[in-house]
């Protein structure tokens, strides 16, 4: 789960990570009020779940209350397009009003905590080259990224923080402060079950103090059950409405831009492979949809409703390998969905496995117009042809 910058900073701050003083605003009036409370100048920052906001015009300095008002008016409701949002962009609905930080003589660095999959352990990454995308640094100068792997039994050790601090060129007089900062970041990472904490830039001010000027905190979805307070930070406006609807029915749905072939599959790997074979057949998949291993007829119907909620879908491919899920249950769900929802696009069904013959017979006897296929290639070719004909 992703959260906004201001929420991430609040989480980090509660673990002792220094962040600029700031407050969220949903309206222009709130923005002005916050600015007065914090003291001018302030920085107005658009809050969306994507990076690259500064370059796209989503971060502005305001010196007076009038300037805050002007900036807030422009930003609230604007569609912000950054390299991470895609061409459709994101509507700005919240602003972070933050105290202006004196950048004179300040140094921008990078600090992050993530889980290293290959090592099976958390790793703290740091770089003296902050304020730019870490992927760019990694591509240009891999040696500029310092890494310390955490031993799970003992946690992040002071010597590791010192190694990183020296590597970043932090003066000896500031060592204790830098170490405390990094330890606080790791404490937060571990305590909230984050999948990532990224502070970029981490600012070393002229007086030597460190502050998180920006913060990205993502949570491990699997661990949210033990952090009920964090669930409230979810912002549904940042998510696709169909994806939100799908998640309510325990369906895993991801909309893909520009696709015309809706697909419904059981299992994540097979769902990805089905998208791939649609592409190979010359079509474009409209979505990823995993109905799970033990879907009921009701689930199948919900899945259909979500698929068809995407107006660009011109044909649907159902690809099910019945292991636990039986083909007759699938057929029952599909028939009920088509009858109740009045599906207006061609439906191609390919099913294999448990009770396959029974399921096929049910589809045949339903009197509804389904196209069936025996293997994935045939299914993909048929659905791509149908989607093409429907355009």
């Amino acid at each position, binding site marked *: 789960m992703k959260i906004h910058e201001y929420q991430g900073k609040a989480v980090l701050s509660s673990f002792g990570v220094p962040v600029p003083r700031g407050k969220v605003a949903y309206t222009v009036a709130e923005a002005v009020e916050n600015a007065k409370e914090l003291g001018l100048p302030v920085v107005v920052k658009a809050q969306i779940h994507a990076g690259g906001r500064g370059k796209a015009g989503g971060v502005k300095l305001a010196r007076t209350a009038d300037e805050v008002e002007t900036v807030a008016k422009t930003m609230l409701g604007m569609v912000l397009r950054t390299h*991470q949002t895609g061409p459709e962009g994101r509507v700005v609905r919240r602003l972070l009003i933050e105290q202006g930080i004196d950048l004179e003589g300040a140094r921008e660095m990078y600090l992050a905590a993530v*889980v290293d*999959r*290959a090592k*099976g*352990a*958390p790793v703290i990454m740091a770089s003296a080259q902050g304020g730019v995308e*870490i*992927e760019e640094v*990694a591509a240009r100068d891999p040696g500029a990224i310092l890494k310390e792997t955490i*031993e*799970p*039994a003992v946690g992040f050790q002071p010597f590791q923080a010192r190694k990183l601090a020296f590597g970043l060129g932090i003066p000896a007089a500031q060592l204790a402060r830098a170490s405390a900062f990094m330890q606080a970041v790791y404490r937060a990472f*571990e305590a909230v*079950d984050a*999948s990532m904490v990224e502070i970029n830039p981490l600012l070393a001010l002229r007086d030597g103090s460190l502050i998180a000027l920006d913060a990205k905190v993502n949570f*491990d*979805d*699997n*661990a949210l*059950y*033990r952090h009920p307070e964090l669930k409230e930070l979810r912002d549904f406006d940042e998510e696709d409405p169909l994806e939100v609807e799908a998640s309510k029915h325990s369906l*895993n749905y*991801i909309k*893909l*831009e520009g696709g015309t072939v809706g697909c419904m*599959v*059981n*299992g*994540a*790997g*097979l*769902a*990805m*492979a*089905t*998208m*791939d*074979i*649609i*592409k*190979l057949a010359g079509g474009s*998949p409209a979505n*990823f949809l*995993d109905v799970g*291993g033990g879907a009921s007829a009701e689930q199948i119907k919900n899945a259909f409703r979500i698929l068809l909620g995407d107006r660009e879908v011109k044909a649907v491919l159902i690809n099910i*390998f*019945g*292991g*636990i899920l039986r083909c007759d249950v699938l057929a029952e769900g599909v028939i009920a969905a088509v009858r109740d929802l009045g599906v207006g696009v061609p439906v191609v069904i390919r099913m*294999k*496995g*448990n009770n396959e013959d029974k399921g096929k017979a049910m589809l045949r006897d339903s009197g509804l117009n389904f196209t069936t296929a025996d*293997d*994935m*290639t045939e299914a*993909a070719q048929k659905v791509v042809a149908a989607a093409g004909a429907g355009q």
Partner: protein
Amino acid sequence: MSVLVGRETRLLVQGMGKHGTFHAMGCREYGTTVVGGVTPGKGGTTVEGFPLFDSVTEAVRKTGANVSVVFVPPPGAADAIMEAADAGITLVVAITEGVPTLDMVKASAFLEGRKTRLIGPNCPGIISPAEKCKVGIMPGHIHKGGGVGVVSRSGTLTYEAVHQLTTLGIGQSTCIGIGGDPIIGTRHVDALKLFNEDPGTEAIVMIGEIGGTDEEEAAAYVRQQVKKPVVGFIAGQTAPPGRRMGHAGAIISGGKGTAEEKMKAMADAGVHVVRSPADIGATVARVLKR
């Protein structure tokens, strides 16, 4: 021949709830020796003919269990894995989906230096068809004994590949579903080592996914060590970056873990890479000249 599970397997089921019991019966029906289950507090009772025990240690002492399969829900799954290792179980297969990543960090550290191998979590399990041994949730009937080792990060896509093989008359030595999570026990490279050393395995099918670098690591091993033909497929060639494609581990992040990179690494290592998931079986048939 097979790897990891076979006739000598004495299976213990951890988490004998509805789900666990259902699959315990499925394993027994397939031919696996299921010696019992563990549900703390239910020791001394039986369910569907399976004796239940309070702890894995007690179960091992009384039944000689050497393999366990974990159906314990996410909050207790990592604990169950560690309990099995502590009791001396040599192979733990964790089916549970949704285990917190930091729990797996701890469980992995706990397993370090112990003799226990972990498969999963978030996996369908492992099956050796010729020896009638199934430890997991896969449909047994699509498998057939033979000489192809299958290793995969996904569930139903593995069934699809196995079905293609069986339909073409090509049997499998052992099929290992290693799971779709970011932190897993047995990885592609580990499975490849087992198959490479197994005299009963003559060819290997490796099914990967976007995310992480396990397939690249496996490819490096294939290049250096593997003399048997390897057929590979990567799911997620059309997946957008930054989105978690169902599996927690299936995500392209920071431009890393794309299908293209993985397929290139595999092809460079001499793996027969197929672009279409429908061609896995036929490609194995071709490399085995059948």
